């Protein structure tokens, strides 16, 4: 055997998984189809002299235990979260800055409502209590709910006890909130719509849902319960530390190596064949690709049971997010806070703005007024652009993969224009700063990153797709095919820059080897 393990994809999950496996001195190879490492977090030059830091920028969900397990601080990741401020601009009003320093947030909210400022503190402690129950569940291998053994009961018992410890009132809340829509739930707490829209944003990011869609509160709870603040150096630092850790552990990384198929013989993995015809043997193959790509593109249909194939086809990966990178010849300024620089900005002044943006998707249209999740990486990393210039990296909600008129070149440019127009509302004059731009529609994202449906989380975070993620038979990273594992965001606990699926998959593979 040439390799013990081949990991497909050098995204953060693939890197984390490979590094953990390599610690037991296995021969581990990562094959990456692109020429850059980092997957959705790979920084690239998108306009001469201007670089972005990747499709996803939010590293606040990165697991501290993973950082420790891989010794990432020894590989250049500075410890501790960076100060974090998210700015919600207004066209008419002071806007709102939510900060990782609670007192600052409270003072900001008090500019809009004293009641909400008080509520926000209560809300914070309440979420802190729930976190004790939710966070551990998102940091462990999932149990298969339809096949519980005695061991699973012992495994689950501490979680049950933790839930009971919450007391009757909080426990009831924990049962009540998940199926709710985030809009209803937040309105129970706060009257300031700008605040509601600001904190609801992440709960609908990447979904096929608006704030009025039931179940979006689950996303909110999952995110806040694993929120650790963005790390120092942003996503680029995470990727570079992961890469160093991987190579330091002896992992071999081959870029520009697209996989044609995963070779399977008699239900067991034999290795992979690359697009250039190279065949590489391995005892195990771990795919960090999304489930649909893994099973439908990389595996011959005759190796799949009809049922598994059907489940994978039914798995919902309807991309709704576009990405626009803007090269600007000056720092970006916002009307409601002149002179201030923000790294993270979220638009949407009320919950209905978010919902209206989502409505379009249902009719296979893009939002006329999209919700913008803007990251200005040059605030922390001025070296990404020429002196005095800046970069705005915008996640655009919503633009459907299934766009009725099709994503032609003109449709792509119209999307870019809509983003610039929307930003112009809050940052008048910003239009004139643009010296270059790159627009990625969900179809572009699909093609560039090999992501079915262009879905940034490798599959929607619907409740049913969280309970048995991704599909029955594959919920614990192993698959029905001997030696084939999954380790991408399509697995528990889902998408985002967390490293959790990769690391948890590695643990499962390790224990199955023993």
């Amino acid at each position: 055997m040439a390799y013990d393990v081949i990991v497909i994809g050098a995204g953060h999950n693939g890197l984390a998984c490979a590094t953990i496996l390599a610690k037991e001195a296995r021969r581990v190879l990562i094959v990456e189809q692109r020429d850059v490492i980092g997957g959705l977090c790979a920084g690239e030059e998108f306009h001469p002299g201007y670089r972005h830091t990747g499709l996803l920028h939010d590293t606040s969900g990165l697991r501290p235990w993973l950082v420790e397990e891989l010794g990432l601080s020894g590989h250049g990741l500075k410890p501790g979260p960076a100060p974090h401020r998210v700015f919600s601009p207004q066209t008419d009003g002071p806007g709102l800055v939510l900060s990782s320093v609670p007192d600052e947030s409270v003072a900001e909210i008090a500019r809009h409502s004293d009641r909400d400022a008080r509520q926000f503190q209560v809300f914070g402690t309440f979420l802190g209590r729930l976190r004790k129950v939710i966070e551990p569940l998102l940091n462990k291998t999932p149990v298969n709910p339809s096949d519980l053994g005695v061991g699973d009961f012992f495994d689950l018992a501490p979680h049950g006890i933790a839930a009971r410890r919450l007391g009757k009132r909080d426990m009831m809340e924990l049962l009540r909130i998940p199926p709710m829509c985030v809009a209803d739930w937040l309105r129970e707490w706060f009257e300031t719509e700008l605040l509601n829209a600001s904190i609801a944003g992440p709960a609908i990011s990447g979904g096929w849902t608006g704030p009025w869609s039931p179940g979006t509160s689950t996303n909110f709870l999952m995110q806040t319960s694993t929120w650790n603040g963005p790390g120092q150096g942003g996503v680029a630092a995470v990727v570079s530390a992961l890469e160093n850790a991987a190579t330091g552990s002896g992992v071999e990384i081959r870029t520009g190596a697209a996989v044609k198929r995963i070779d399977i013989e008699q239900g067991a993995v034999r290795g992979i064949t690359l697009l250039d015809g190279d065949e590489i043997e391995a005892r195990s193959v771990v795919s960090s690709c999304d489930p649909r790509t893994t099973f439908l593109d990389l595996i011959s249909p005759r190796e799949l049971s009809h049922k598994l194939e059907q489940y994978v086809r039914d798995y919902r990966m309807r991309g709704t997010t576009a990405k626009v990178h803007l090269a600007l010849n000056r720092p970006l300024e916002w009307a409601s806070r002149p002179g201030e620089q923000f790294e993270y900005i979220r638009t949407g002044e009320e919950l209905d703005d978010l919902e209206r943006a989502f409505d379009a998707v249902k009719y296979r249209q893009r939002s006329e007024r999209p919700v913008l999740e803007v990251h200005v990486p040059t605030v922390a990393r001025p070296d990404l652009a020429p002196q005095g210039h800046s970069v705005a990296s915008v996640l655009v909600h919503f633009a459907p993969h299934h766009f009725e008129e099709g994503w032609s070149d003109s449709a792509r440019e119209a999307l870019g224009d809509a983003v610039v127009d929307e930003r112009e509302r809050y940052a008048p004059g910003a239009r004139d700063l643009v010296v270059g731009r790159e627009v990625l529609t969900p179809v572009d994202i699909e093609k560039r990153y090999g992501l079915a449906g262009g879905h940034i989380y490798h599959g929607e975070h619907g409740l049913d797709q969280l309970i048995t993620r991704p599909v029955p038979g594959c919920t614990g990273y192993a698959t029905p095919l001997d030696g084939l594992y999954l380790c991408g965001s399509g697995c528990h606990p889902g998408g985002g820059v967390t490293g959790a699926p990769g690391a948890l998959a590695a643990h499962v593979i390790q224990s199955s080897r023993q």
Partner: protein
Amino acid sequence: MAAKYDAIVIGGGHNGLVCAAYLAKAGRKTLVLEGRHVLGGAAVTEEVYPGFKYSVFSYVVSLFRPHIIRELNLAQHGLQLIPLECSFTPHLEGPGLVRWSEAARTRREIARLSPRDAEIQPAFSLAMTKMAFLIKNIIDNPVPDPTSLDPRELKRLADFGNHFLKLDADSFHLHSQLLTMSAVDFLSLWFESEILMAPMSVSGIIGTFLGVRSPGTAYVLLHHYMGEIDGAFRSWGFSRGGTGGLSLACARAAESLGAQIRTEAPVSHLRVQNGRTTGVVLENGDEIEARTVFSSLDPNRTFLRLVGEQHLDEEFTNQIKRYKLRGSSGKVNLALDRIPEFTCRPGIGPHLMGDLAIAPNIDYLERAYDQAKYGDFSERPYINAVFPSLVDPSVAPPGKHVMSCFVQYAPYHIKEGPEFWPQRREAFGEAVIDTLEQYAPGLRDCILHKQVLTPWDMEQMVGLSEGNIFQGELSLEQLLFQRPAPGWARYRTPIRDLWMCGSGAHPGGGIMGSPGELAAKYALQTRGV
């Protein structure tokens, strides 16, 4: 001080009457108090215009539990259910779609849209019928309390959970999909024809403030398959003489078992002393003493109006205040000179004997919902209509007809504010008739009388808070052990001897009779009455 009762039931709707009948059957001295001059609550028949008997609000009997019919001998007391023969979806182009109670005939209709869908339809029905056992289990029993450590509760919980645990992986997956997905997403797992899925999906949104693409709407699809496992021919039907006929049968049953019923006796408030109720005070000032009180009114009305915040702790009050009602539907009742013809299926044929749904495609339904989200009624709403006089001539003068239209969305909270509904009522009624007119040109000329009911009207007329026909949204966070408030799903309330027995209690709304039945049985069983 009037005679002392074992139990007073507030509200003479079908749940209140069922509850009273079971209490009386157990020998309890029971009094039903109804505020209006007619019995039935929202399940009522009224002769609004001479000769035309409208099922004013609720118009089809969907899920009424067969064992209640047996146990209370409702058939002997005049209940006659006439099954709906079909479900007709007219279209502006093409022949429309009729789903018949006869499966083979439906398959032929579907085959015209998609042979593949026709082929898969039986498998879908079978899967749904199997899963309907889940619903049956839920609606025919009180819910367990997941926070209790009482061994009996843990046992109940285990039994409840056992339904899921004993499922194989595929069935478990199907269940979890059904409980969490949107109706459209769930149906898309099976079918490809939007024209078929649109009328199927609407059963997931009736009475809710959700769209067919909103997660959580799939499981209501099961209700349509309840009839199969109850051994009934079909679960949807008319009550002869209008929906009020069902309520009257319940009333006769209750009276025959010894219950007393008073109409035009609106309750002003509950007598509450030291945290327990001792009876009620009527609006005319009369006080009636009773050992227990059962309220079939919605939680908002029961606790915030009849009990009063001064008798409740703050946490419970807040829970009741956040309980979501926001009605989303209206009703248009028409008296017709003749039945209009539908362009896509001319003639007055059997396709009009069932219900008809204006649900031409999924986008249509979603657009209707989107308008409601932002505080408007739908200009082109989802309409579910029936011509009860075609199968039950007793409800209209000879040769004339009644048309009953359920309309969604008509949000209680229109952006002008609910009190502005009377000014918008006419426009709302016109939107409904305009919509129907597209499919049945000439309908407008057939109309002799029209009654337009907005959610605001429903609140005014029968006291349904915010015009919610289910006494509270049937969303997952307001069901099971959280209905009406977390920890108070066993019909008991924080006020001792006050019980809940209406649709605001488990298992919720629709003409099931279950909340009334389960409240009475549970109270009797726990010696609460």
